[in-house]
C-alpha cells in the first residue's frame, strides 16, 4: 500500500466515522454550537434555545431518515 493510498484510507475512515450517511448531523452540530455561542452572550433565559436547536436538528435528520 502506498503512502497516498494509506492517507486516502485514513481520511475515508474518519469521514465515514464522523459524517457517514448523516452529513446533516455533522454540519447541523456546527450550526447549533454557533447558536450556543450567540446565546451565551445574550439574556440567560435564552439558554433553552440551545437544546431546542438540537431537537430541531434531530427531528430534521429523522424526517430525512423516514423518507430515505
Amino acid at each position, binding site marked *: 500500500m502506498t503512502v497516498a493510498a494509506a492517507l486516502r484510507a485514513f481520511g475515508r475512515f474518519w469521514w465515514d466515522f464522523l459524517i457517514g450517511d448523516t452529513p446533516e448531523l455533522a454540519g447541523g452540530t456546527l450550526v447549533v454550537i454557533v447558536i450556543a455561542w450567540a446565546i451565551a452572550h445574550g439574556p440567560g433565559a435564552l*439558554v433553552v434555545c440551545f437544546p431546542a436547536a438540537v*431537537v430541531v436538528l434531530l427531528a430534521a435528520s429523522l424526517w430525512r431518515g423516514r423518507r430515505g
Partner: protein
Amino acid sequence: MTSTLLLVLAVFAACTVEAVEALTIVLAAGVTRGWRSTIEGAAAALLVLAALVAAFGPALIRYVPISVLRLVVGGLLLSLGLQWLRKALLRASGLKAKHDEDAIYRREVARLSGLPRPAGGRDATGFVISFKGVFLEGMEVVLIVLSLGLSSGRLGYAVAAAAAAVVVVTAVGLLVARQLAEVPENAMKLGVGLMLVSFGTFWSGEGAGIRWPLADGAILGLIATYAVVAFVAVRFLQRGRVVAPPSPEPA
C-alpha cells in the same frame, strides 16, 4: 456525584454495545480460524486502543484549555450522540432493520469457513479479522471515553467504566460460549444516545460560555427533555411505517 454516575453509566453502556458487536466477530473468527491467532488479534487491537487513550488523554488535558476542549469534544459528543440516537429511534420505530447478532455470526462463519487455511502455525486471516473487528468497534468507544472523560475532567472514571464493560462482556461471552444475541442492544443504544446528546449539549454549551441553571444538575433536565422528545418521535415515526426485517448489517 450525579454527573459522575451518569458518565460511568453512559461509557459502560456504550462500551457494552460495541463489545457485544466485537465479540460476535471474534467468536466467528475463533470458531472458523482457530483461537490462538484470533485472541492475539483481539488483544493487539485492545492494546492499540489503550495506547491511543493513554497518548491523547493526558496530552489533551495538559496542552488544550478546558473551555476549548469542552467546546470541541462536546461538539464531537453531540454529533456522535445524535448519530446513535437517530439510528436507535429509526430502529425502535421499525423504519430501520434491527441489528441481528445471530445473522452476523452465521454470515461471518460462512464467509471465513470458505477461505483457505495455513497448514500450521498462525492464521493471518483470523488475526486480521479479529483485530479489525475489535479496533473498529473500539474506536467509537475511545472517542466516547476521551470526549466524556476530558470534558468532565474524569478520564479515570471513563476508562475504568469502559474496561469494566469489556471484562463483563468477555466473561459472559466466554461463560455462555456464544455471541450475546439476547442483549437488548437497541434499547441500550437509545439510552446511550440520550446520554451522549445530553452530555454533548451540556459540555459544548459550557465551552461556548453558557451558564446552565442548576450547574451539573442541568444534565438530568437535558436527559429528561430528550427522553420525552425520543418517545414522541418514536410514536410519530411508527405511524404508517413498513416493518423492516432484522438486518445482518454492521451497526
